[in-house]
């Protein structure tokens, strides 16, 4: 990374000193700089991470730069929406079938219950209820397992993306003249991102899983229920997540403020010195420096944009899927309540709640990582402007 940084600085220096800078326009300069930074690995990583959703493509950093220079929109929103639509249709079909099975089962249980009531044997009704509830819980647990695997995978992928994008962003930040920001950001950012991802994956998600399982067992076998233990575990997990989020936001805010102020002072001093003390060419020199820093800034913002877009696309699909599952389970809970089979609608309600928590967790993690990228993008913009 250091070598890359030195290379960028050298290129920047060459661009400053050579008269070529003044002959070519901003377009050429930006293109030169874009070629000097190797973003191919990042682009590969991003397209691999996003590639599981067909129809959605994240443009590469250089494409974004040239599109922005020519006042074009680098990413077409309709494409994302079409991709989302396709994914949603498939998910609705699958989850709707699951819900249909659950519905049929609960109707069956209700009929059996009425039948045994009229026959006058209470035990049979209980057994039939238990059988139906067992099948229902199996189906529900399966779909919850799918959901939690999806969220774990999502967090891992976001983690990979952040680890790929942070070093590049920091190098470009230093290239844009924000040395203090780069110095402050790099260790703290990596630390917080790792901390958040690790604790969420290894603590928050398992706690939510345990809580859900305990509550489902409580609905399944109402005697000796462990309902409050489940609540305790869920509260613990969510408190942990909330604490992480608070810590994260604090660190990010302080970092952004401190770094950009320090950088702004340094660079302005440099420009002032060049203007005042270098005779004749001083003004030209400082103007050229600003141009180079500006183009490097454009490239950095393009990379930030790739990161932000990738995070949005990667999160949008699982979040939408979780949301759909949650809505369907809520619908099921509402629909099965009139059948009056004890346990069925509360089981479905618990499932819906659990899916809602999963949605909240993945949304919170994605928001934090998104904030990292945007804070980096905005922190060093103040230097040049």
């Amino acid at each position: 990374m250091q070598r890359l940084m030195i290379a960028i600085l050298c290129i920047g220096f060459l661009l400053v000193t050579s008269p070529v800078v003044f002959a070519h326009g901003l377009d050429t300069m930006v293109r030169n700089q874009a070629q000097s930074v190797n973003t191919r690995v990042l682009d590969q990583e991003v397209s691999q991470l996003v590639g599981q959703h067909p129809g959605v493509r994240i443009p590469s950093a250089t494409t974004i730069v040239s599109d922005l220079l020519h006042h074009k929109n680098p990413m077409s929103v309709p494409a994302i929406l079409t991709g989302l639509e396709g994914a949603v249709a498939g998910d609705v079909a699958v989850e709707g079938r699951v819900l249909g099975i659950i519905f049929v089962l609960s109707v069956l249980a209700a009929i059996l219950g009425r039948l045994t009531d009229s026959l006058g044997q209470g035990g049979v009704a209980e057994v039939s209820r238990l059988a139906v509830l067992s099948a229902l819980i199996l189906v529900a647990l399966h779909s919850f397992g799918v959901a939690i695997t999806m969220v774990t995978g999502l967090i891992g992928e976001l983690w990979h993306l952040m680890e790929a994008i942070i070093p590049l962003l920091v190098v470009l930040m230093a290239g844009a003249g924000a040395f203090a920001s780069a110095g402050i950001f790099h260790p703290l950012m990596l630390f917080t991102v790792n901390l958040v991802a690790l604790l969420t994956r290894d603590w928050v998600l398992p706690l939510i899983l345990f809580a859900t399982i305990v509550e489902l067992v409580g609905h399944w076998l109402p005697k000796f229920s462990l309902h409050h233990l489940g609540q305790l575990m869920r509260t613990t997990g969510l408190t942990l997540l909330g604490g992480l989020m608070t810590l994260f936001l604090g660190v990010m805010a302080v970092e952004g403020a401190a770094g950009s102020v320090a950088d702004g002072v340094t660079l302005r001093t440099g420009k002032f010195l060049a203007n005042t003390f270098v005779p004749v060419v001083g003004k030209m020199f400082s103007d050229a420096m600003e141009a180079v820093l500006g183009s490097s800034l454009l490239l950095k913002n393009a990379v930030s944009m790739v990161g932000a877009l990738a995070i949005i696309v990667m999160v949008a699909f699982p979040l939408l899927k979780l949301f759909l599952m949650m809505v369907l389970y809520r619908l099921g809970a509402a629909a099965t309540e009139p059948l009056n089979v004890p346990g069925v609608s509360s089981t479905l309600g618990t499932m819906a709640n659990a899916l809602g928590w999963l949605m909240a967790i993945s949304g919170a993690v994605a928001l934090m990582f998104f904030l990292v990228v945007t804070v980096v993008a905005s922190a060093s913009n103040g230097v040049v402007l």
Partner: protein
Amino acid sequence: MVAVIGTWVKALIVIVLLGNLAEFVLPKGDLRRYTGLVVGLILLLAMVSPVWNILHGAHPSLIQQQLLGAPSSQGLGEVIRQEEWNQAQAMVLTYPGVTRCAIKESGGRLAVTVEVTGTVKHKELQHYIAGALQVALGGNGSIPANIEIVVTPARPAVGTGITRQKEG
């Protein structure tokens, strides 16, 4: 840690399942009521026991058992003293010319038996051994009074205790 919580939750769920099974199987009556009470108590015990263990820390932990072997009549203090002697022996063996060293306790006194080859100044060696014992056992700087040091020339036979390979 999460794995520990996972096993705990698993155990709780198994107890709940068995309790419910018992409720189903048993006939209505007094027996069923008492079973419910007993299952509830067992559940309480299973739920509280890890917390209890953490709070009191009294149970021998698994790592400790693996390091020191199963708890024996010796106790931890004895094991530590033995380790200190071994350390002192190892230090004495670094003295040039010493081939063998054994530390034993007899009647409240530490008996150090040293075998040497060649010409070794006994007084210096005794000082060295006393110093090693002080370092290993922890002393206040003066030579402990209840130490008996016996220096003998080396025998060809190899006995017990830590021996040092003669360097060529």
